[in-house]
């Protein structure tokens, strides 16, 4: 357990010492949320929608970039090779990265919640906040699996490029910035295949907003996607090994 604790400590240190990682992943979602919920917003329904979807967006950044680019860089530099020959199990390294990602996702969520709670017209019960936080923080898991696969399959430069494309695609097609129901029909169909869409729907259900699908359908879809992404990550790990 000491190895896992030190691994988590090392990951947190690496993350907080990289301002190029912290600034966009922590500040951008909060800045976007403040802009769209306070400046361009005139309805409580919109406020709830934005809180639910921007929370997913906030968790997505640390997960995709922290895993994707972080792992690609460390793999390129040979650090993963040293991990593979070390006696600790490989999942310690992944688990430490996941804990760090969730910690940073929580840090990215807090200012959004503070703005929503104190500066907007949203009123939520304590249990609403808790369920919303649980969905938001858990949404880091499928995104982290995407990041892990990217990090294991691409070089650093490749991972930067592909992570950005995937990050933006998931945000746009998942309806995190603009609701999916205003999309054209083919975009709405595409949205169904993104975890971001189902996570946003799940988050909306926690704040009593109705989505297109039932929460159980969203949950099952996300679970299926996470299983597929886990298989992809395992394949990428064994291929790299």
């Amino acid at each position, binding site marked *: 357990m*000491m*190895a896992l*604790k*030190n*691994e988590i*400590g*090392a990951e947190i*240190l*690496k993350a907080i*010492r*990289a301002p190029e990682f912290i600034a966009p992943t922590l500040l951008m979602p909060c800045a976007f949320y403040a802009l769209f919920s306070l400046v361009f917003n005139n309805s409580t329904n919109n406020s709830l929608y934005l809180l639910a979807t921007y929370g997913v967006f906030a968790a997505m950044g640390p997960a995709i970039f922290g895993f994707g680019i972080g792992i690609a860089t*460390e793999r390129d*530099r*040979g*650090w993963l*090779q*040293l991990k*593979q*020959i*070390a*006696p*600790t199990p490989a999942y310690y390294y992944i688990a430490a990265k996941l804990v760090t990602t969730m910690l940073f996702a929580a840090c990215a969520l807090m200012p959004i919640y503070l703005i929503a709670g104190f500066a907007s017209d949203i009123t939520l019960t304590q249990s609403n906040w808790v369920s919303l936080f649980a969905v938001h923080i858990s949404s880091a898991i499928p995104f982290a699996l995407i990041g892990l696969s990217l990090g294991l399959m691409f070089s650093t430069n490749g991972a930067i490029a592909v992570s950005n494309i995937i990050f933006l695609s998931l945000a746009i097609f998942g309806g995190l910035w603009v609701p999916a129901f205003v999309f054209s029909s083919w975009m709405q169909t595409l949205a169904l295949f993104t975890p971001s869409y189902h996570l946003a729907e799940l988050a909306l259900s926690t704040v009593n907003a109705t989505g297109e699908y039932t929460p159980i359908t969203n949950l099952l879809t996300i679970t299926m996607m996470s299983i597929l992404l886990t298989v992809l990550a395992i394949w990428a790990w064994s291929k790299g*090994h």
Partner: protein
Amino acid sequence: MKPTALISKNLQLNYNNYSNNYSKNKGDSKALNGLSLTVPEGGITAILGSNGAGKTTFIKCALGLLQTNSGSLQVLGQPAGGKRLKQHVGAMMQGADLPDLLSAREHLTLVCSYYQNASPIAQLIEQCGLSDFVDKRYKTLSDGQKRRVQFAAAIAGRPKLIFLDEPTTGLDLKARQILWNTIRNLSQNGSTVILTTHYLADADALADHTIVINKGKTIAQGTTDNVRNIASGTVIRCQTYISQRTIKSLPTVKSVNTSGRLIDILCNDSNTTLKMLLELDPHLSDLTVSTPSLDQAFEQLLNNCSTTQGLTQ
């Protein structure tokens, strides 16, 4: 019979198993081509070979990072890459770097926590000469300092067997001496050290045993003295204006190499060769006559590898 730390028998590994670039660049299809070698327990064994000979590939196989196509590889009596082995094996890999944003102390704290029987961090810092920069971030260190941190990480678990892949690359003379002393201490404390190096002086100074590989095959192995003695003859070193071509044409001369302003002549018969050289250049100067170094043995082995029979002991 002396116990062995590592035995490989007839290892075969195709390039396309792990790198398409290799097969495209080299024309050869095999990274390891029937490699067989034995590393005795204890002591220091050097694996020598030119670039692309298969040294690093072999180490990766021994560490379980690459799977061979055929052959057997036993490390400390167990199949290579086994989980139980990992507590007892350390490695400093060429091209395997540590993350930039942690200090040397933080790296060692992390790596030591992987092992059940890790060295105290203070001891590692002193042993590897890290005290001047132990709290600086890794990215701010010089290449030589980085190598020392990597070395400390490799020995953190007090390994029974340690692989050092080109350990002295990028080190200055002082750091090299510190590393040599640490490697000797490790060996004296019972660890088996396997090192690959381009610096034959390292092998000459450190290694009890030497293995020479070429194109994925062992071409010589034995005690370092025995391998050195493969280069029969004498080395004449001198300064002369005679052209290399003329010297090479002398009947007793086996090979000629320049070393700065001096020229090294490996010959069968030093007296006859010297007489001929003095006839051609009466002003020949800075003359020394010696037995061949490991460098010369290595070069001779590579030149003759198609015909040389491996010396095994």
